[in-house]
C-alpha cells in the first residue's frame, strides 16, 4: 500500500502551545498504528491567520493557504485540534474549515481534540466540534480527546488518563485510515455534464 499521509491542524496560538503539544502526541500515537514511513504534515493555523481572513474577504486563497487546502484534500486522515474558547472551537479554527470546499473532508477519517482550562469543558468536543465535522461528512473517530491544564502534570496526577486516551484515539484513527482507500481529490472537470445533458437533464 502507498505511503499514507496524516495532516495535523493545530489552532493553538501561543508559542509553545499546549494545543500543538496535544496535536503532536496524537500524531505520534496514530503513526504508531500505521506502517513506518507514514507522512505527518502539521498545519499551524497561527501562521495562516492573515491568509485565512484575507480568503474570507476576497474569496480566494493565498499561495500559502492554497497549499494547506491542497494538503487537506490529499490527506488520508486528519487530526484537528483547537483550544476551547467560550465553550467551542476558536474562531480561527472554524474559519480555516470555512475556507475548504464543503466536499474536502467527505468520507475522510478525522480525529478531533481540544485543549481547555478544566475537564468541565470536555463535552464541547461533542456538542460543538463533532457536529462541524459531521456537517462536513467526515468520519470522526469515536474517541475525542480533551486535554485540560491539570492533565499536563505528571502522569500520576491525572492517573495517566490523558496518555491512555491519546493512545486509544490514535489507534482508532490509524485503524480507520488503514481500512480506507487512499485519498484521491476529485477533479471538478472530470464530471462536467455535456451540453446535451445540461439542456435535457431537467
Amino acid at each position: 500500500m502507498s505511503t499514507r499521509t496524516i495532516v495535523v491542524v493545530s489552532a493553538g496560538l501561543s508559542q509553545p502551545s499546549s494545543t500543538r503539544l496535544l496535536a503532536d502526541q496524537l500524531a505520534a500515537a496514530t503513526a504508531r498504528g500505521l506502517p513506518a514511513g507514514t507522512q505527518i504534515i502539521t498545519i499551524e493555523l497561527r501562521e495562516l491567520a492573515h491568509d485565512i481572513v484575507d480568503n474570507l474577504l476576497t474569496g480566494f486563497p493565498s499561495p500559502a493557504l492554497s497549499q494547506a487546502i491542497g494538503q487537506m484534500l490529499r490527506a488520508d486522515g486528519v487530526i484537528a485540534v483547537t483550544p476551547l474558547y467560550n465553550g467551542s472551537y476558536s474562531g480561527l479554527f472554524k474559519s480555516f474549515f470555512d475556507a475548504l470546499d464543503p466536499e474536502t473532508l467527505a468520507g475522510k477519517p478525522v480525529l478531533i481534540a481540544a485543549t481547555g482550562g478544566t475537564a468541565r469543558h470536555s463535552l464541547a468536543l461533542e456538542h460543538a466540534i463533532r457536529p462541524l465535522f459531521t456537517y462536513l461528512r467526515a468520519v470522526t473517530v469515536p474517541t475525542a480527546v480533551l486535554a485540560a491544564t491539570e492533565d499536563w502534570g505528571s502522569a500520576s496526577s491525572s492517573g495517566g488518563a490523558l496518555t491512555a486516551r491519546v493512545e486509544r484515539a490514535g489507534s482508532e484513527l490509524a485503524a480507520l485510515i488503514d481500512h480506507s482507500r487512499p485519498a484521491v481529490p476529485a477533479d471538478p472537470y472530470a464530471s462536467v455534464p455535456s451540453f446535451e445533458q445540461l439542456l435535457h437533464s431537467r
Partner: protein
Amino acid sequence: MQFGIFTVGDVTTDPTTGRTPTEHERIKAMVAIARKAEEVGLDVFATGEHHNPPFVPSSPTTMLGYIAAQTQDLILSTATTLITTNDPVKIAEDFAVLQHLADGRVDLMLGRGNTGPVYPWFGQDIRKGIELAIENYHLLHRLWREEVVDAHGEFRTPLQGFTSVPRPLDGVPPFVWHGSIRSPEIAEQAAFYGDGFFANHIFWPTEHFVRLVGYYRQRFAHYGHGTPEQAIVGLGGQVFMRKNSQDAVREFRPYFDNAPVYGHGPSLEDFTSQTPLTVGSPQEVIDKTLTFRDHFGDYQRQLFLMDHAGLPLKVVLEQLDLLGEVVPVLRRELDALRPAGVPDGPTHQARVAASLTEAAAELETSSR
C-alpha cells in the same frame, strides 16, 4: 485584438474625500467614460447590470443606446447581462433594437448574477442559476435565428408562433460572450454554441482561470467550431497608472484599502502579486498584460476595470488617457504574435462578411 473597459456602475464613496456621487452624477460619469474610451482609441465599452444599491445600471440598453448616439466606432457591450433573471424574449428585443440603432456596434456578455435576493425579485431562484442560464440562452439563441419560434421550457410561459422583432441587423445576431468565474458548465455552454468565453479573472489568481479557459478551448474544438486556439476568449484586467510607479501606488492605495471587493483584506502588494491587478507605470501595465497571453494563449478581447472603488471621474478620465497610450503598444505586440488562423475580435462587419461567405458556399454546394 480588441481593447476596452468594463464598468460595474457602483456608487462608491471616495475614501480620500468622503464624497459620494449622486446616482445622476454616476450615470452621467459612465457616459463620459464611454465617450472618453472612444476618444482615446479603445474598441469596447461594457456596462454591468445590477438591480440593487449601490449600483445604477439597471437598464443597460437604455444607457448603451444613449452612448451609441454619441459615438462613432465604439462597440457597446455588457458585463454582464443577466441571462437568469431577464426574460430572454426581452433581451432579444432590447438588443436587436440597440443593434439597429448602433449600426451593428453591439455585442453582449451573459452572466448569471451571484446576488441571491435579486432572483426572487424577478420570479426566479438562484439555486436554479445554471439551469436558467442554459434554458434562457437556448431560447434567446433561437429567437435571433428562427423567424417563427415555438418554445416551451421550465421557466417561461410557452411561445407559439412567436416572432421576435426587430429581426437582427443584416440577419446577423449580436455576438455573445458567456462570462463565468467558476463554472465549467458555462464554459461548456459557450463552447457548444461557438460563442465567446470571458474570464473575469481580476479578483482571483490566474491559475484557476487557466483551467477554465483551457476547458472552454478544448470543448470549442470538440463541438467542431475550429481548433482550441481559434476559440474566442476575453479577459478582464484592472490597472491604475501614473508615469512614475511610486506615484501610482501612493495615489491608489487608499482606494485599494477601502475597495468594496477586497478592501481591509490583503495588502496592495500581495494582491498585485496574486491577481492581474497592476498598479504602476504604463510600462508595468504593458509587461503584466502581455503575460496574460502566456497563460491563456492568443485571445481576442481585453477589458479593463477603471472606474471603481470611489475613484473620481477626473482621475478615471486621466487613467483612460494613459490607457490610450498603453493600448497601441499592446495591440501591436499581441497582433504581431497572433498566428494566422486565430480570429480577431468579433465585429458586426466581419460576422456579416462571414455569413455571406458561408451562404455562398452553401449555395455552391447545393447547386452542384
